[in-house]
Structures are given as C-alpha cells and as structure tokens.
C-alpha cells in the first residue's frame, strides 16, 4: 500500500511559538483520516502544511509524489493534486456557482468554455445541488455554500482532499447535509484528511483517527480508539467534549 501523504518529524513555528513539535504520520491511498484535538493543538496548521499554505521549519513532507519540504517545489502542480475545503467556505462572492466551480479548470487545466457547464453540473450532482448552478453564493444557505465549495474542489479532480472543520460555521441542522456528502465521497474511495469536532463522524467514517495534543500526534488508531482511549489526555478530551 503506497502512502499518498507522508509527514516526518515536522516542526513549524510562528515567530518564537512552536506550534508543531515533530509531527509524523502517513496516509495511504483511499484512506480517510480524521484529525481531532483541542483548539490550538495544531490541527489546522498540520493540514495547511500538507498543501504548503504554511512553510515548515524542518522535517520531510511528501504529497502525491511531490517532495514539498524544499524551496523549489512546483506549488501549482502540488495543488492540482490536493483539494482543500475551508471552515468559512471561501467561495468567490462575485461569481455564480458555475463560475466558482469552473474558474480553476478553465484557467489552470485550459478546459474549453463549452465543456465547463457539463463539468459544473457533474460536480454539483455529486453534492446534490445541480439546481443551484446559476445562483450566487449569497443566495445559498451555509450548508449549500459548503457543498458548492466541495464541488469546486472536486472539479479539479484532486487525489487527496483536505477538510478543515468544514461544519464548524454551520447550524446543527445544516451540518448533516455536508457530512453526508463527505461520507459519500469517502465511500467512493477518495483519500481524505478531515480535521473535525464531529466525533460520531470520525468514528463512523474514518479508517483512522489522529489525536493531536500540544503540537504532537498524541495517540492514533482506528475509529474505535475513541471508545477506549489509552492516554489520559484523549480520555479527558472525549469526556469534556471540545
């Protein structure tokens, strides 16, 4: 089984504050990994290192065959292979749903304009929002916006997808629709790294859970590990909630 994402001994600081203190893990093709942990434990930072939104101070990082810990990485090649969905959706407010989805394929992959609508439609069908193709982001609910953001990412046909607390900004009744889309993606074989506070989702969908604490991978194991925590920190985290 080949690893799609390999982190080895990653150190990352913001100024004098060390946020990641030697993080290592690997993610295999088709695997769904949930990263959990307290606020400030470095989950987002670790995720953002995977597609080089953050530069690291030391360690080795390999993603989809790209070595990305050195200076001279081809970031655009990397990012065509890695999709990312944010907590705050970050849709482009001045573009329609279709334009949001097809902008990158048209610009980066030189997709012909006449094929764009078909691609948008196909991506939207995967998130169950085909009827919103001509809407503007502000006309959509939060959950719908997040599903469009997922569709936008899917349209680039990434090999790995990163999700950073994508349901945290949503009302509880809207999180379900987004989680269902993610679950469908997972069942379809997509390699996914999911930073989440949704414990039920982590247990049910993830092949593996990584518990981060104080900038380190504290405990890792299958979803069941949440029912039987080994370290007191994880036990504490689970019983005290977020």
């Amino acid at each position, binding site marked *: 089984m080949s690893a799609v994402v390999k982190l080895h001994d990653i150190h990352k600081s913001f100024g004098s504050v060390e946020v990641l203190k030697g993080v290592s893990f690997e993610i295999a093709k088709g695997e769904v990994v949930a990263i959990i942990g307290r606020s400030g434990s470095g989950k987002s930072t670790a995720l953002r290192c995977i*597609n080089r*939104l953050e530069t690291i101070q030391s360690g080795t990082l390999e993603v989809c065959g790209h070595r990305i810990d050195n200076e001279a990485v081809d970031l655009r090649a990397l990012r065509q292979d890695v999709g990312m969905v944010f907590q705050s959706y970050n849709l482009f407010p001045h573009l329609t749903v279709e334009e949001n989805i097809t902008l990158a394929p048209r610009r980066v992959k030189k997709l012909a304009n006449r094929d764009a609508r078909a691609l948008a439609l196909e991506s939207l069908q995967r998130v169950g929002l085909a009827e919103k193709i001509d809407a503007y982001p502000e006309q959509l609910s939060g959950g719908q916006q997040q599903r469009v953001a997922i569709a936008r990412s899917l349209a680039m046909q990434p090999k790995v997808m990163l999700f950073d607390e994508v349901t945290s900004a949503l009302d509880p009744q809207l999180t379900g629709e987004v989680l269902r889309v993610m679950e469908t993606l997972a069942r379809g074989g997509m390699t996914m790294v999911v930073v989440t506070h949704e414990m039920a989702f982590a247990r049910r969908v993830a092949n593996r859970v990584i518990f981060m604490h104080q900038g380190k991978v504290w405990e890792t194991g299958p979803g069941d590990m949440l029912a039987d925590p080994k370290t007191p920190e994880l036990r504490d985290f689970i019983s005290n909630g977020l």
Partner: protein
Amino acid sequence: MGGSFTVNHLIYLLQGMMWTVVLSALAFALGGVAGFGVMLMRTARTRLLRQISFVYVQLIQGTPLLIVLFVVYFGLGVVGIELPPLLAAGVSLMVYSSAFLGEIWRGCVEAVPRTQWEASECLALTRWQTLVDVILPQAARIATPPTVGFLVQVMKSTSLASVVGFVELTRAAQVVNNSLFTPFLVFGIAGVLYFALCYPLSRWSRSLERKLNVGRRQAA
C-alpha cells in the same frame, strides 16, 4: 479700465473650461495606468518592489503638486526636452495621480479577505490569475467611490497648470480679469464653472459609497 463682461469673455472662459476637462481626462487616464502599476508594486511579493514603490508614494505625497510641476517643467527643459505646457502639466498630474490612486487601490485590494487568495491558491490559480479573476473584480466595487472622489481632486488640481502658462479655466479667468479688473465677478464665474464640473462627481461618489455600505450591511 477694461469695460464690462461680455458674451465673448464667457466664451473664452468656456473654452478654458474645455481644456480643464481635456487635461483632467489626460491626467486621470495616464495616472490610472501608472497608478495600477504602483498598486501592483505595493502589493508585490518581492520586498524590493514594495519598498521602491513605498518610497515613491511617500515622496510624491510629501511634495506639493506645484513643486512637482516646476521640477518636471524646468527639469525636462534643462535636459533639452521642450514640453508644451499641456504635456508638462499632464506628466506632472500623472505622477501625482499615480501615487494617490496607487495607494487608494492598494487599500481596496488589501480589503479583499486574505482567504480569497488562499482559496485561489488551493485551486492552483497563479498569482496573476487570482488577481484578475478573483481579487480585482471584488476590489473594483470598493474602489469606485474613492476613485471617482479622486477624479474631483484631479480636476481641481489642473488649475495649477495655469502657472506654467497653459490656458485652462483658471488661466483664462486670470486673462479676463487682467483686462476687466472685476475679480469677484470673473473668479466667481470660474468658481461656478469648476463647481459645475466637480459637484456632480462628488455627489456621485457619495451615492456610490452609500450603496456599497448598504450592500455590505445586507451581506453581513
């Protein structure tokens, strides 16, 4: 004494006013192009470019336009380039506008949330593609009111071209006043003509800004 104000005087002033409009348009167009360059440099990733453009903006904004005008006028004359007054004034106003517009537009570009850059980056868009397709369309909305407001500034500033002998509205008024010696009347009329050019633009700028604020409040 030179007699009374006639229709011919008014026509002369209106001709001057036309040249004020021409010079304003020239200055605004040239200044807009150069200002776009300044904005690109101010937001560039290369530190040196940012520093150079910062110094440029500080220098121009810290020097009176009249002095910029003299430096351009005498400077180019001295190195042998004889500029007609229209061009000398146009170049000075271009330099002046580029610094101010560049700075206004930089503010608008930076007002677009950083996450929009990040999202574009994650979709493998280049920096230029991000700027053109994602950032500028959003920045343009915010930039319109202050840009129109600055156009008023440019229009008023063209009056300084009279100092190097370009016959726009202010110079025309001086010429008329020199023969009639009725300053309240002549400069009053000139003032009214300037007001007729500037006030609608000011109003427009303000209503654009109000609309923008209302839109923002609804989006929030």
